[in-house]
């Protein structure tokens, strides 16, 4: 009997690998955006599988804001080294010069470091295809995002000019100057990601697991005081709380949840029994209903 039923994770894995290989076969100069989060970790792991025994034939690009958690920087460097891949770190020089930070500059922080930084980095290295770890289940406007998402020469996303994707056929052809963002884990859900990390033993940032950490409570979020740049308000003193993070970004913008989950199964257990969505911990989405769609049109991932 040769027949075997593929599990949902096996099918998702096969699809993601297929997408990555299509890009490598058709793109001139691809790159993988690496944000050090759990989705990036899974994407990187899939890339290793897709091209084994060769290392993934493209570099990793981290568009840095200088405000990530320290644990993230540590894992970033280690993961690239383990995969045998070149790691490119890009910081928007204007944001560096002006000292853009999430405390004083509000939404300008995301605009300059991430949106502008990403565009600058892609232009600087001439990348024509960039892999991203976005998933369709993250947010409503992402549910309609293509796997191959086309961007004009000035990086804008136009919902009307996106191409239909049929079967396993991806049309990667583009004019000079145009680029493509490719999302190989589009069809994975948060639970799929966690299950796969568990099954494959993929290393992730320790911040996903609960530990006593110095925190303050502010504007309805629990924020971690990760370094001395965190300006404390009058009357605020960091308190040790047993917390973990469901999603990782810039530490001053990422809310923690109180938790005792110290192992992967415990994290998954908590996630399954929780009653709030993973993006709730991110300040960026709460502006207005269509905020993510607007940001995407402007070039944010």
């Amino acid at each position, binding site marked *: 009997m040769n027949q075997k039923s593929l*599990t949902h994770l096996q099918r998702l894995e096969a699809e993601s690998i*297929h997408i990555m290989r299509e890009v490598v076969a058709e793109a001139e100069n691809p790159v993988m955006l690496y944000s050090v989060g759990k989705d990036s970790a899974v994407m990187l792991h899939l890339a290793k599988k897709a091209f084994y025994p060769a290392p993934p034939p493209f570099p990793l690009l981290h568009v840095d804001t200088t405000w990530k958690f320290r644990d993230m920087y540590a894992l970033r460097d280690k993961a690239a080294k383990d995969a045998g891949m070149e790691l490119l770190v890009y910081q928007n020089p204007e944001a560096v010069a002006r000292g853009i930070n999430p405390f004083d500059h509000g939404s300008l922080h995301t605009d300059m470091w991430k949106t502008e930084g990403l565009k600058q980095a892609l232009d600087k290295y001439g990348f024509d295809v960039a892999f991203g770890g976005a998933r369709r289940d993250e947010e409503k406007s992402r549910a309609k995002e293509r796997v191959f998402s086309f961007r004009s020469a000035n990086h804008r996303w136009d919902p009307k000019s996106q191409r239909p994707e*049929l079967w396993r056929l991806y049309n990667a052809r583009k004019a000079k100057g145009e680029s493509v963002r490719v999302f190989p884990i589009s069809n994975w859900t948060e639970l799929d990601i966690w299950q796969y990390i568990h099954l494959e033993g993929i290393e992730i940032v320790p911040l996903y697991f609960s530990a006593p950490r110095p925190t303050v409570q502010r504007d309805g979020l629990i924020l971690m005081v990760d370094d001395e740049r965190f300006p404390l308000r009058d009357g605020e003193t960091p308190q040790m709380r047993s917390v973990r993070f469901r999603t990782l970004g810039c530490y001053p913008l990422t809310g923690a949840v109180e938790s005792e989950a110290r192992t992967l199964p415990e994290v998954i257990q908590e996630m399954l029994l929780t009653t709030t969505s993973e993006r709730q911990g991110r300040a960026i989405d709460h502006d207005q209903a269509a905020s993510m769609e607007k940001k995407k049109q402007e070039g944010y991932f």
Partner: protein
Amino acid sequence: MTTQDPIYKTDALIAENIDAYLEAHQHKTMLRFITCGSVDDGKSTLIGRLLYDSKMIFEDQLAALEADSKRVGTQGQEIDFALLVDGLAAEREQGITIDVAYRFFATEKRKFIVADTPGHEQYTRNMVTGASTADVAVILIDARKGVLTQTRRHSYLVNLLGIRHVVLAVNKMDLVGYDQAIFDKIVEEYGEFARSIGIDAFTAIPISGFKGDNITGPSENTPWYHGTALLPHLETVELDTTADQAKPFRMPVQWVNRPNLDFRGFAGLVASGTVRPGDAIRVLPSGKTSTIARVVSLDGDRDLAVAGESVTLTFADEIDCSRGQVIVAAQSPLEVADQFESTLVWMDEHELVPGRAYWLKIGTQTVSATVHAPKYEVNVNTQEHLATKTLDLNAIGVANITTDREIPFAPYDDNRDLGGFILIDKITNHTVAAGMIHFALRRAQNIHWQATDIGREHHAGMKHQKPAVLWLTGLSGSGKSTIANIVEKKLARMNRHTFLLDGDNVRHGLNKDLGFTEADRIENIRRVGEVAKLMTDAGLIVITAFISPFRSERDMVRGMMQPGEFVEVFVDTPLSVAEGRDVKGLYAKARAGQLKNFTGIDSPYEAPEAPEIRIDTTEITPEQAADLIIARLIP
């Protein structure tokens, strides 16, 4: 809904024994389905209900939903599930969904991916896209309205895309008092229609997406219904990938993995069948054979891979194999051909241009292909065949296709991966059509190239020259014919063997049956290209003077010639200058509306992007232009 729903039982397991839960859920399978329905059939509500009932909605999303329901919802004070799945801002304002959205939920047995496509008449394109990856189609009918034109359209498309499992969900049963007679009547009417288009079997379920009847479990409101509820049905349907494993082995090669001289692996996704080390294989179209040495993976070599898996294979022998070729079981090869009959679904604003070359991507291979004039268009509402010369956005038709080389394929009904293709516009790079191969045309297989003893090199050698095509393109009145004539005279003086093909002259003879529509202009250029090609085979230097306004056709002719033989000469004269000259009085006629499809006036001219030579006739004389061209040809 009742608390006996299977999905809720898992909560206890998650809380008590997460390891057991994870173990169980790692063995879940995955089913992809599409929901089709008309605008008011309650499709978004049903999907919202599935997400809600399978606990994919979190508290914060629910709070937002409740607020939105009161603000813009259509269900009064009740939760409007449809708001959960309406995505882009523009759509929310219009109140209809206009694209394909993918939703995810899971039960104890399966993970589900739902392609949510709009039911609106104009959006055949989206439904076909969503259906192309689906195992199951859920066709929604409003119990109050019964089988509508759109139900027929959706069913036709579902069948066209080869979906084997159809669910007829008769929705809004709560609004007809859960009346069995109404349900039975709809099922009977639908059954008759379904059989007429080739859907042999379907599963009919009476539901209410709004109230939740027969969604996760049997409803007390329909005691007369003895079948399974929707979700349990979806949890047990056989998957396409499992069925595909029983077929012969086929894998299109995606990428050749060569990290060093000692390793050469062929990466791809298994389209059908299974593969083990030691299996005899054949590479198509070359026909070379070998055996599988290893099935390589990061976690160590494997002894089996099956349809649906991405793998890397190595061969026992060093044989040629590259991207686009297909590895197949040696004893059951695929057909190879370059002419096909296929169904096309047109997806672009710009209509099909018969005769124009498009890129055709099938499996992992991209080739150049031309579509012949359609045999007929299908009226998707009535399934009638209509005569047509082209296919517009959302039109479906049957046409023959010729590719520029032989490709391995399978009829679409046998294998989606080897029989489904897309067409890509060579200029805009848009995906303009989806196609499904029916069969190869015999005529392609019966005409073979006759090998001749005196070849093109011999012809050219006797003339002591290198053949070339000097292709002059530009507006009417730009000076093409004048310059071409001078070039030929100068070359003749240099003892070169030439021939000048002039646009007007060719239309008196070879092409006198052609007019000036876009399709005729393309055929005009194709024939001229073929003639020019024969002349280069005869060793001649060919000079042509045609407006040849479309980039794709100039590129098509370039593709016919040997590399380096085609020299594109852009005779660049601004419209105002050419119109000012108006030697033949044609611009005046066109402006007066007496001449249709005149380039520059009511038909576009697509200037070359990177011509070998560009001549600005406002700067230099025809004589100087001719010298420039000759200098390039004979350095």
